[in-house]
């Protein structure tokens, strides 16, 4: 491995990751400066159960009409995020445990997941462009983020066999860029998501709304 690629896979990633971490810490501190709405009344339900239920909706597509009626969109969500997780994992495996990807089965699993995520990403991009509703609610950041993620997934697919020099450069350069860009874009939704679901679950659990009753 030449020095440039090593530098890109290691030091640059650590620097980028540190920047992301610092920005995230600052963002959380900033968020916590806003006072939360506190439920002051005696509870009818159970806040902890409500919070748990709120988080678990991600794994319960039947709990929301939006995902139960359009199950394919839920599947897209799962595949896309698994692909992103696989690409992130690969970005750590390649520099530090490169022998892992020498196992043909593991490589095939990673590539399959990432390829599927890329296809879903393309479907999402096409939908954002072709659907009138999606167009009207989309910002430049929405388009840029999905395009960039698709390119990144594609580069990951070709990079993880750890053989193609330029693909590795592209993948790690894009990863570093992402680590710095993400905190300032919609992709950072995963940072706010736990807070958002926590407070919604807390309120609805307190009032006995969550867990949602489905009837007998």
């Amino acid at each position, binding site marked *: 491995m030449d020095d440039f690629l090593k530098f890109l896979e290691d030091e640059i990633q650590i620097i980028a990751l540190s920047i992301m971490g610092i920005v995230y810490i600052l963002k959380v501190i900033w968020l*916590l400066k806003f006072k*939360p709405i506190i*439920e002051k009344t005696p509870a009818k339900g159970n806040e902890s159960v409500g919070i748990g239920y709120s988080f678990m909706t991600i794994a319960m597509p039947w709990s929301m009409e*939006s995902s139960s009626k359009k199950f394919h969109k839920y599947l897209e969500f799962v595949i896309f995020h698994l692909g992103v997780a696989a690409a992130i994992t690969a970005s750590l495996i390649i520099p530090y445990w490169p022998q892992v990807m020498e196992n043909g089965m593991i490589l095939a699993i990673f590539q399959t997941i990432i390829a599927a995520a890329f296809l879903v990403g393309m479907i999402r991009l096409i939908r954002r462009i072709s659907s*009138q*509703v*999606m167009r009207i609610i989309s910002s430049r950041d929405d388009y840029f983020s999905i395009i960039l993620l698709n390119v990144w997934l594609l580069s990951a697919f070709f990079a993880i066999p750890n053989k193609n020099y330029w693909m590795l450069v592209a993948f790690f350069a894009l990863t570093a860029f992402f680590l710095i860009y993400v905190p300032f874009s919609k992709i950072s939704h995963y940072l706010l998501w736990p*807070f958002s679901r926590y407070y919604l679950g807390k309120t609805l659990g307190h009032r006995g709304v969550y867990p949602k009753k489905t*009837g007998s």
Partner: protein
Amino acid sequence: MSQEPIKSDKIEKALALFKKRMNRQAVLSFGVCVHCGMCTETCHYYEATKDPKMAPAYKADKVRKIYKKHFDWTGKIIPSWVGARDIKTEDDLKELVDVVFGSCTMCRRCTFNCPMGVDKALIMRTMRGVLTELDLAPQGVKDVSRDQWTIGNQMGVSDEDYLETIEWLNDELKTELDDPSASLPLDVENCNMVYAINPREIKYAPMSLLAAGKIFHAAGESWTLPSKGWDNTNFGLFSGDNALGGHMGKLVFENVQRLKGKSLVCSECGHGYRATKWESPNWSGIILEQPIYNFLEIMVDYVKSGRIKLDKTKNTEPVTYHDPCNLARSGGITEEPRFLLRQSIMDFREMYPNRADNWCCSGGGGAMSMSEFSKRRLEVAKVKADQLKATGAKIVATACHNCVDALMDLIRHYKLDMKVALVGELVANALVMERKAIPVMPAYAADSFLSGFRILVTDDEPDMVAFISAVLGDHGAEILRASNGDEALSILRKEKPSMMTLDLSMPGKTGVEVYEEMKNDKFLKDIPVFIITGQPELRKLIYDGSYPPPNGYVDKPIDEEKLLLNVRKILNLQHEKT
């Protein structure tokens, strides 16, 4: 190069208020949306119109853009990248009024379907609060809020009217139950329950209060109505005005404490219960020591403990249940009404989707008070209308007076063969009284209790005149008939009837014009007027006017029982036994 418009004081104030109202949950709801579009088809505004501008994410973005401009780190530096935009002109403020008041009922259905947990109702309410403080809220919202601030209830009911109505209903209850011990107690101290109601029960729907009286009496409950602080409704929830929200809660709580009640019970009003039990303590910091219940919870307890017995054969028509948003999605009440209905009716038919997934009645969020958006409200009510129709039920029960009004309106608009009833009314009708039998509604036999009264019936539809005349005439009233406004005024001047029924929409001189003319005529102004209309939105023309409000109203198609009950009330008649 285009120059950015100079901000007016109003815009500066709007931005300052917006910043002031920001809290952690709001920041999260503004910041976490990924524009996935999963909420789109969960909104009845979008479902009915398929207009992309009615997608919840789009509507929320109208407010979110401002957040992005002033709070989002990227939005502050590169606004166009994340869709950030400032309020630039007063037209922007007007557009916001249309979005947050006219295109969203804050029903929270989209929130429950958002993978990210974005509370779009919170986003809308945040901006509603800003616009209300700027005096830009729709006139109906302002009027109702003003009445709550100044008179203490949302329909401007005077103390005298309130007390008179209670007294009259008290007599009705005794007569109907044939039991002198039955009563609607007022200001009794140390009761188990202080019962706070919706002013609609005093003004237009006394049957629900009568039903509650019967149920409390049958259960042998120690309860009371307060003479002050009796309005459980709260327009602060709809207008975004936390100060009003806290004020209304405080009024109710103070009177529970004054009467040393052991608990507070809210009558069947979705937003009233939510605001009183859950929201107003958060807004004002004032927490009632006594527990707060919904009347549904109390009735369930009565049935389960055997304090009341129900005979479901008294309600034979198929009934479905509409979940009020504020009970199902924000109040935690979904099973109680179903339990009660299964105990008190023969044929209960679930509607789909239901409970927290149920569709909004289309009149939530104060929409019924905003006549400028009535057309859109009725258009998007098609989703609810289709849902109702699919049940095949003849009665839609609900537990919210606001939903009752909205459902009646859409049933009329979409010509559904259905009636609306509150759960408590159906329970009361199924009551088995241990001591004396309760007459099954309708309680009025063809007696002559209207004998000696002359009633002018004014309507341009001959069928309607014939129907009203037959109902009132069968009970002894002498009927005068007018088919237009001019004829009505002429008869009024000549005959001086005891009261008149007035249709609002007539060719030539409209009912509104007749009403105004009457109120300007010293000989006619005291003749009681009962509005009967097929276009409820027209009522606003009268209620928003500078004249005293009419003595009552009923919507078409006319419920005979409601007509008779209201005429009794207006003529201050005791209910004679049948």
